[in-house]
């Protein structure tokens, strides 16, 4: 009773302290039994993306793709994406899948696209042996923006290289050895990729079982891969890559690939197409450097052996000009159809030139804001000096939510790689929620 007034005075503080203690205990509790592996798991993300395209109406590719359409200055597109990934486990086997569904709306219409990116059964009788069958994404190579030895995958977008892509149906395996000593790891990955009218038709010519293989070595801390793909739906090719740390914050990597008897259609300004056949050699050299202030620099030089020289690209753009002139003068679309056909092939690849330089600078915790990452990416066609620059803001501070804003500028003179692309600018924002 004597201390009653003190108790009354301090009990809110005692309660507060107890509550704080309880809260601390609660926030720091952790029981691993909650995280036992389940036989079935499912997850993925839902994403809403807004894109605004600002067209370069004078560009060759814009005019070619829209010669029979009303001319537009811009297009606003909203895309809803649902990506679902799951795993089903039983004994030594695992079935996993990843599906991707897009619904898009813009001023021109409504589009939808549903794809199975991956769906494969894996059997692992031993940690050193895995056999898989189904649709699988195999990503070979050490390049960040380009992968010349990516023989059994769809091309990646250097402007968004981390984007999930669709795989190919295949049978593949993984044999891993640890010899010890300087040769720390040896891993062999054989692949068989069938192509017919119903399966993997985008890969190349039908009627082939395309064999491919990769041999990985970890030798004295350096990653080394040797890759090969036999002649079949595509010409035979082989190559290698490496990646190593010069010092802990400075990594260098490289790739080299040779495609045998590669056929490259080359058009002159009059529309005459000659198919050149020869071995095509591609090379990539790159580095990744992290500063003490958490700025990451990624730089790559890419020599595209299957690409077109500045002069060859100029001739193609002039041919498009001649085809449009023919349309204006005679009403005939014959040359335009030919140009369209070429643009859907190797001339229409996003990076159809010969030499590119890639530079990305990203800052962790930019402006002192944790989980905020500003970045800027530039891709330059080395010969014609046309370029694409993409500033980017990414915030991942909210649990399971990624917010990304990007603005791409494409600049170049007439008859240059980026100067003749249909877009002059592209604004993009997405919110991606993982579940």
């Amino acid at each position, binding site marked *: 009773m004597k201390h009653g007034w003190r108790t009354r005075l301090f009990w809110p503080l005692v309660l507060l302290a107890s509550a704080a203690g309880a809260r601390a205990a609660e926030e720091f509790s952790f029981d691993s039994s909650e995280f036992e592996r389940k036989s079935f798991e499912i997850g993925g993300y839902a994403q809403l993306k807004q894109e605004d395209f600002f067209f370069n109406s004078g560009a060759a590719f814009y005019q070619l793709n829209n010669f029979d359409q009303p001319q537009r200055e811009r297009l606003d597109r909203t895309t809803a994406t649902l990506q679902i990934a799951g795993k089903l486990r039983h004994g030594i086997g695992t079935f996993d899948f990843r599906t991707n569904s897009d619904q898009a709306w813009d001023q021109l219409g409504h589009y939808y696209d549903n794809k199975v990116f991956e769906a494969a059964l894996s059997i692992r009788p031993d940690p*050193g042996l895995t056999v898989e069958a189904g649709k699988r994404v195999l990503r070979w190579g050490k390049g960040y923006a380009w992968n010349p030895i990516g023989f059994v995958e769809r091309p990646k977008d250097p402007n968004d290289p*981390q*984007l999930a892509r669709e795989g190919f149906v295949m049978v593949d395996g993984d044999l891993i050895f640890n010899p010890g000593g300087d040769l720390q*790891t040896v891993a062999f990955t054989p692949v068989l990729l069938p192509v017919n009218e119903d399966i993997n038709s985008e890969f190349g010519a039908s009627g082939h079982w395309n064999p491919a293989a990769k041999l990985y070595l970890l030798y004295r801390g350096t990653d080394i891969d040797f890759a090969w793909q036999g002649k079949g739906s595509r010409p035979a090719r082989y190559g290698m890559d490496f990646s190593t740390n010069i010092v802990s914050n400075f990594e260098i990597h490289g790739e080299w690939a040779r495609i045998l008897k590669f056929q490259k259609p080359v058009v002159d300004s009059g529309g005459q197409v000659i198919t050149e056949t020869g071995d095509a050699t591609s090379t990539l050299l790159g580095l990744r450097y992290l500063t003490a202030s958490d700025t990451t620099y990624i730089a790559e030089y890419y020599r595209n052996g299957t690409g077109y020289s500045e002069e060859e690209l100029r001739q193609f753009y002039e041919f498009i000009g001649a085809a449009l002139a023919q349309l204006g003068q005679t009403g005939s679309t014959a040359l335009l159809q030919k140009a369209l056909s070429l643009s859907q092939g190797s001339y229409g690849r996003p990076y159809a030139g010969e030499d590119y330089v890639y530079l990305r600078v990203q800052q*962790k*915790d930019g402006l002192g804001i944790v989980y905020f990452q500003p970045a800027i990416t530039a891709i330059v066609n080395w010969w014609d000096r046309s370029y694409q620059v993409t500033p980017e803001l990414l915030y991942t501070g909210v649990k*399971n939510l990624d917010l990304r804003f990007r603005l791409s500028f494409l600049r170049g003179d007439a008859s240059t790689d980026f100067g003749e692309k249909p877009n002059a600018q592209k604004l993009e924002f997405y919110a991606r929620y993982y579940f």
Partner: protein
Amino acid sequence: MKKLLGLMLCLLALPAAAALDGNQILQKVDRNLEPESYEAYRKLIDIQPDGTKKEYVLYTIKKGRDKVVALFLLPASDKGRATLRLEDNMWLYMPDVGRPIRITSLQSVTGSIFNNADILRIDYTAEYNVETAEEQKSAYLLSLKAKTGEVAYDKLKMWVDKQLLLPVTIEAYAASGLLLKTLRFKDIKDFGGGIKRPATIETDSPLYKGYKSVMLWSGLKKASFSDEIFTLNYLPRVQELRK
């Protein structure tokens, strides 16, 4: 005379008896913290100055002195990411990217004050030499110097509990002498199988004023793994190891 001789012998023997073998203490710290090969679950909690938190749960396996794999189980945005460390080399596998990329010890895959060297920590004796060992009232103070320039922290000051031979506090310094972070080991817990160690590690850094990160350990036990698991090719399949 015999007494005098005895006293002299005692005086001569005293420095030798009192001399601390810092390397032996560090070896015991390594083994008392974790078995050489183990599996464990860890929760990383990043606490921002305004009190908001971000949590990660990792499944970790280690073999020998310098092979570590950590797999992200939470949050959903990071689930399936796996990191591998072999000696000084580190890689990160992201399911979306589909292939491992090299990362550095000073980066943080979680973005927290715990960097990759903390998350994929190998034995202290594998990375550091003991420069000096000093006996204090209730702790040994070990001054550790990195064996190579590849190690994340150039110097460590480690206060080791004299009874338990477990770290109490570690200060991590850059080569310039700058204090990078302080790690505080708390909440001694019996994990079973003879493993008794701190279940909580808190860290803060003068470089991130007001921020704090906490690492909680659970399910730590001895385990053996084949070498093939600690390879780039196995990284996408690490989650199949969990029971």
